[in-house]
């Protein structure tokens, strides 16, 4: 057992997993002792509802990061999807059709990123900052500055549906996570993704079509962003031009805390999931304490820097 743990920790991505589990237990215990209404069913339902969408979009982003790329346009893609969806619903389109079109819009936005990175060979950072600004501009155009509301209650009601006390959106997030963990660790695609991130040149020589993989990942990222935006839209029943603005950073925060290497190659999905849960519980607890958002940001940032610290390795 000890041997297994020691070996497990040695893999770089796993180090954060172990640390996060320890930290998470301490954090949760501390909050439940300090805060009278922290360990309640309704608080955890809130927590799950609030973090489900962030969790969904963090999955494709984590994978994109593993290939050595980055996607900073997620928030804007979510904005465009949510506003389009809201407008379609307002126009009286049936819900299933609106869902389908919204996912298509997300895929389209994702393929725009994919095209820039995989076909034009732009740097992911440059390309997605570009699309981030561009698509946010599109949000302003779509809304004309006013928020789109008055959505049908059959749609917004879904956000309050629970299965065994767990919100539907959270269950969906867990399902996507489970699939992603399986695919990334047990299938060839997962190995190829890691290979592309670890050494793009070598992977090309071994016959992996890196560009194809990157393109598909960005399209997937767009689709998931579309799905996440729908759940967020259900919760708010309103879409404004600033919808999901800054979500890219929030997602990155969770993932980096989970030990995904921003330079590509290493990291695992479990870490990303734990990072997400850690930040969500931390913010929730700090909200309960009444700490202002400005301090919260400072603490979360500090946590990331600390978690990224690697003490100098002893040369073997």
């Amino acid at each position: 057992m000890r041997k297994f743990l020691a070996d497990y920790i040695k893999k770089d991505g796993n180090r954060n997993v172990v640390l996060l589990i320890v930290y998470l237990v301490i954090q949760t215990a501390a909050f439940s002792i300090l805060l009278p209404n922290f360990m309640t069913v309704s608080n955890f339902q809130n927590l799950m509802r609030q973090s489900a969408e962030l969790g969904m979009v963090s999955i494709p982003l984590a994978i994109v990061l593993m290939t050595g790329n980055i996607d900073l346009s997620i928030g804007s893609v979510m904005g465009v999807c949510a506003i389009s969806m809201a407008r379609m619903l307002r126009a009286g389109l049936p819900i299933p059709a609106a869902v389908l079109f919204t996912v298509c819009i997300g895929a389209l936005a994702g393929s725009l990123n994919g095209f820039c990175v995989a076909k034009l060979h732009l740097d992911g950072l440059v390309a997605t900052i570009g699309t981030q600004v561009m698509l946010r501009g599109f949000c302003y155009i779509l809304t004309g500055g006013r928020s789109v509301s008055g959505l049908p209650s059959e749609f917004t009601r879904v956000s309050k549906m629970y299965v065994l006390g767990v919100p539907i959106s959270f269950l969906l997030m867990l399902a996507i996570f489970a699939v992603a963990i399986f695919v990334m660790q047990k299938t060839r695609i997962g190995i190829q993704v890691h290979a592309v991130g670890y050494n793009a040149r070598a992977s090309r020589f071994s016959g992996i079509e890196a560009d194809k993989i990157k393109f598909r990942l960005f399209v997937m990222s767009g689709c998931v962003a579309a799905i996440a935006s729908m759940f967020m839209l259900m919760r708010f029943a309103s879409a404004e031009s600033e919808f999901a603005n800054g979500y890219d950073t929030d997602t990155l925060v969770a993932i980096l805390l989970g030990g995904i290497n921003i330079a590509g190659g290493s990291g695992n999905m479990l870490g990303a999931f734990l990072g997400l849960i850690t930040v969500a519980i931390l913010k929730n607890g700090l909200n309960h304490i009444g700490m202002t958002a400005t301090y919260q940001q400072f603490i979360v940032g500090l946590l990331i820097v600390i978690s990224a610290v690697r003490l100098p390795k002893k040369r073997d």
Partner: protein
Amino acid sequence: MRKRRNKVLAIVLCGGLMAGILGGCGAGQEASQDTAPAAEETADAAKENAEQGEAGGKSLFLCPKCVGYDYWTSCETGAKAAADELGYDLTFNGPAATDSAQQITMMEDAMTQGIAGLGISANDADAVVDTIATAKEKGIYTVAFDSDSPNSDRDYCVIPESDAAMGEQLAEMIAQEMGGEGKLAFMVASLSAENQVSKFEAAEAYIHENYPDIEIVATLCSDDENEHAYENAQTLLSTYPDLKGILGFAGAEAPQAAAAVGQAIDNGDLEMGQICVTGIGFPSQCREGLKSGVLKQILSWNPQETGKVTVYVLDALLNGKTIEEIEIDGIELRLDGSYVYHGCVLLTPENVDDYNYA
């Protein structure tokens, strides 16, 4: 070696967290420490509410559009003062940047923790409708402050003055300064935001009605950015050499216009008093213009009062008092339906130093 490394890191991480929690406790308040949590089932909402009512009997939560800006810090100061006077635990917390999602998260968290009253200045008036409805279900009173959420179940809305009344007062101010004639330009922060549109439409109607010799030549929009407002003012000066007045409808407009006019006067392109500038503004930004004489008067309100009145209104709701029964030193409230107006302030070169809000 590696194990030790991890141990060290784990300790550092935990230390960071504990520091955070302790810091938070110091800054916040210990709300209802002695009430034990016992909500076993969500379906049992009634029971939970009763408990939360008990826990949150003296707790209020006010959620501004964002935190870290002078305007909202002033608002917080006023709210905190009122909470101290009336004996409430007040948490004043909003997102770091204007963001609806975080506002909703914070309100939900506050409700779980147990509060008796909620104040909200929504970034997206429609996005909070559902959250306010939840608050109502739980028996929590809600007051919209500074910015209304008209489609919601909020109990009251606390604002300085109705948009229409402010627009008309601004129109009267600039018309007086211009002597009732000449070319006038409007500067606004947004051409679509409800609180801007209703102000400048009211001003326009008022001028057409009462001062037919004033011609409104342009309405420029700054998107609420200082630099943009400044450029807009410069554009106006070069496009309309015979312009006589500029009226600003948001906090950035009049001070930036005054800066542009002041610059033109310094360059010798304009004479002092050739162009009248007024509008909405706050002391910190308008002090210079008022002192230099470019601005003669500015319509303003004190966000401290907004915060203060919000807490008093929540207190009245909780104690079953009417709004008319509220008495606050130096503030005269007016009630119109569910709107509580606390009044505007007219800033002049003489009184601008008396006000310490941002």
